[in-house]
């Protein structure tokens, strides 16, 4: 199996004044190509910290992280920005779309930072919006879209630069159940098309649909279950 993510004894310590909080206490995790991994755990278990590190938004205090063959730990802010741009597609619980920009412009954003030409940006972003069935909403602002539509714009944005990993943090947390289901089935479609997905959730119903469930508790992995293929 092709290893995309390889965490070795990753620890993360936050110091708030005199108090030291160990958010992660030695995580070992490998994620292969085209896996669909759900990371579950109660609040405060360290799963958000784990996601931040996986997404290169944060760096581990110790341990190593290899993403697509590249050692990530200890890189500077500019290199991390490049890696996020090239390898990671984020989907957030609260969508995090730019409110003043149209759906199309929001999707174009990662391509802008990747240095893609205006024309190509437009074409690729439009194609991706078609892919998430929002071809008729390209010029709409986020406020003119429903929650489900906003999340689909966010997914289009996450995928537009063909990331190595789609990293989703509670993507259905702010949606009604119908919209949530649509998002979840979109994820399944993407997985079926070959996309590697890491999903953070505390919804066991959604986690069940993943091909692998990693349970985190007190900063450690306590369970790692692969669904029977």
């Amino acid at each position: 199996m092709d290893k995309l993510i390889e965490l070795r004894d990753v620890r993360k310590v936050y110091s708030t004044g005199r108090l030291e909080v160990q958010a992660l206490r030695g995580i070992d995790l490998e994620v292969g190509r085209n896996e669909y991994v759900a990371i579950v755990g109660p609040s405060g278990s360290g799963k958000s910290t784990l996601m931040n590190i996986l997404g290169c938004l944060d760096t581990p205090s110790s341990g190593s992280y290899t993403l697509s063959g590249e050692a990530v730990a200890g890189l500077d802010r500019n290199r991390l920005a490049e890696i996020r741009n090239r390898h990671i597609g984020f989907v957030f619980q609260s969508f995090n779309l730019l409110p003043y920009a149209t759906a199309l412009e929001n999707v174009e954003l990662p391509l802008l930072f990747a240095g893609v030409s205006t024309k190509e940006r437009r074409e690729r972003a439009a194609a991706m919006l078609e892919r998430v069935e929002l071809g008729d909403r390209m010029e709409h602002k986020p406020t003119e879209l429903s929650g489900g539509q906003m999340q689909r714009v966010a997914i289009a944005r996450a995928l537009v630069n063909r990331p190595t990993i789609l990293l989703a943090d509670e993507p259905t947390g702010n949606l009604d159940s119908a919209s949530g289901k649509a998002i979840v089935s979109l994820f399944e479609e993407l997985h079926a098309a070959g996309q590697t997905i890491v999903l953070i959730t505390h919804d066991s119903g959604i986690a069940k649909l993943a091909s692998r469930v990693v349970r985190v508790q007190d900063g450690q992995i306590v369970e790692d279950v692969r669904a029977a293929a």
Partner: protein
Amino acid sequence: MGSLSFFRQMLQDVRQQKLRTALTVLGITWGTVSVSLLVAFGEGLEARIRANQRGLGENIVIAWPSRTSLPWEGLGKGRRIRITEEDVEALRREIPQARFSGEMSRENSTFRRERVRITPEVSANSPIFAAMRNIIPAAGGRYVNDLDLDRRRRVVFLGDKLKQDLFGDQEAVGQTVMLDNVPFLVVGVMEKKAQDSSYSGRDEGKAFIPDATFRGLFSERYLENFIFQAHDASATPEVTRKVYEVLARRHKFDPADKEAIGMWDTSEAEKFFAIFFGTFRAFLAIIGSFTLVVGGIGVSNIMYVVVEERTREIGVKLAVGAKPAWIQRQFLAETLTLTAVGGVCGMLVTFGFLAVFPLLGLDEYVGTPQASPLVIATTTALLGVIGMVAGWFPARRASLLDPVVALKLA
């Protein structure tokens, strides 16, 4: 995306925070107006006063014989000193680094032309007097020349106001006026000039005739005063000292007796004005600059607030791959745009004001403020610097945001 969206986003900010943005821009506008108008007024006023100064003459010394105040070689004090044309000739001979002209005058001779009678001051002097005193003939005329002197011609050069009183709007050059019933030919009329100081009335109301003619006509030997001008203004003190030496020797008074010959060195005023206007301009520029700096601080504050408000957006951009430098550039560009808009508004206000100002007719008193290249360059440079500094710190803060914190994920 890109620049288009950048401006759209700015417009969005402007629309959402109309009052806030307007007040911020107003701060810069007012600062710009302050700097540019203050400097423009400073320059206009200086130009006006210097022009007025030039009306009397540049770096000339006016000297008038008086009484001795010190005893000298057995002679008592209080002796009257009288200067003649021969003395002026001697000064010319012995002090080649300056030029001299004596002046005689009378105020009781009447000019008559047709029914108009005027008793102006009549000044008799030599041709270089006009050059030293910035008396310039209007087109079609000339000043008294050496030939007039040699031949004791009865010619007269009229101050522009005197010409107006005698001839109205008619042509004066070539006409004849009667001076105490002696006919004089008008050879020239003075070009209108600004003059803020004088020692016997403004030149505009005077009549000028050759001194040789005057002496012959009125049997006058003694000069009322003489003026001199060093070829190099910095040599004025030395020339002055030599003038005292030469005249003291010829008239037997103490060369240190400054009261024997009274002197008014107008270059002293020049020195004063140089310092005064240097200080004045610096003062105005500093006041204006500080107003602009205060405007800049306002912009900087607003930008901090904007960064705060857009923290999440910054987080999103960082998450999808924006480099910190890109974020910094974005906010810097926004600050510079705000500053530029304020600056352009300020410049427009200034230009508008400068266009209207001459209509108020205050030129004679305070000069006409002008948006000289210096004013524009100074203001623009200052705006640029202030915009950069005002934007740098908020932009830096934005670029240093931790994406985790900015996205409120932690």
